[in-house]
């Protein structure tokens, strides 16, 4: 634990990921509409803001732990894919239920993503659980 806290190999990726993820989620939740064109959506709910904060923290923590573990040479197989899967799933589920149809339609995925609209709450939980497992696996154990 102390090795991680004192390691720049953890903190630099963690902070970079925090900035990137926070900026992306802020744009997705329409907080940057003064500066950037945004997706058509209504104001985010408290639940969405809390979920995005938790997701962003877990994504940043996973990124920091991932880089730290790569340097330490003990990175579990499949962790990068799991992190990417959970991050993408979380980002998709932050699009509001109705609005998911419109931007997805632009990509020709309207039907595919429109079907998942009622499942957004459970998909958010799945994204958080997968990220929780990656953090648990990347967390250094006492030897």
């Amino acid at each position: 634990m102390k090795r991680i806290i004192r390691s720049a190999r953890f903190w630099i990726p963690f902070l970079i990921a925090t900035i990137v993820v926070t900026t992306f989620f802020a744009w997705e939740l329409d907080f940057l509409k003064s500066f950037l064109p945004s997706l058509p959506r209504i104001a985010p709910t408290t639940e969405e803001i809390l979920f995005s904060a938790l997701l962003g923290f877990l994504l940043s923590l996973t990124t920091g732990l991932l880089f730290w573990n790569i340097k330490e040479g003990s990175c579990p197989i499949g962790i990068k894919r799991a992190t990417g899967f959970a991050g993408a799933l979380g980002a998709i589920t932050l699009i509001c239920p109705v609005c998911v149809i419109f931007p997805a339609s632009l990509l020709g995925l309207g039907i595919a993503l429109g079907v998942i609209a009622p499942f957004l709450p459970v998909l958010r939980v799945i994204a958080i659980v997968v990220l929780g497992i990656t953090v648990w696996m990347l967390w250094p154990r006492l030897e």
Partner: protein
Amino acid sequence: MQTTPTPTPKKFPWLIVSLGIVVALVGYSFVIKGQPSAVANGYSCPVQQPICKGGDCMKNHLCAAGTCSKECPGNCQHSA
């Protein structure tokens, strides 16, 4: 001469996680199947009150952009 066994690298438990995801989705399907309103809410505007009403439709940037125009009963149509 003994050699130190190479530790097997850990693997992400994709099988267990995949099964968990399937169980969660199927279970949730049964939950919302018993509550038709949950499905309807998934496709309807999350705001409880119509946000675009009367002659002020275009003053609200959400209405002007067409958001929730059709999905929310009582809201103005995009062309209004």
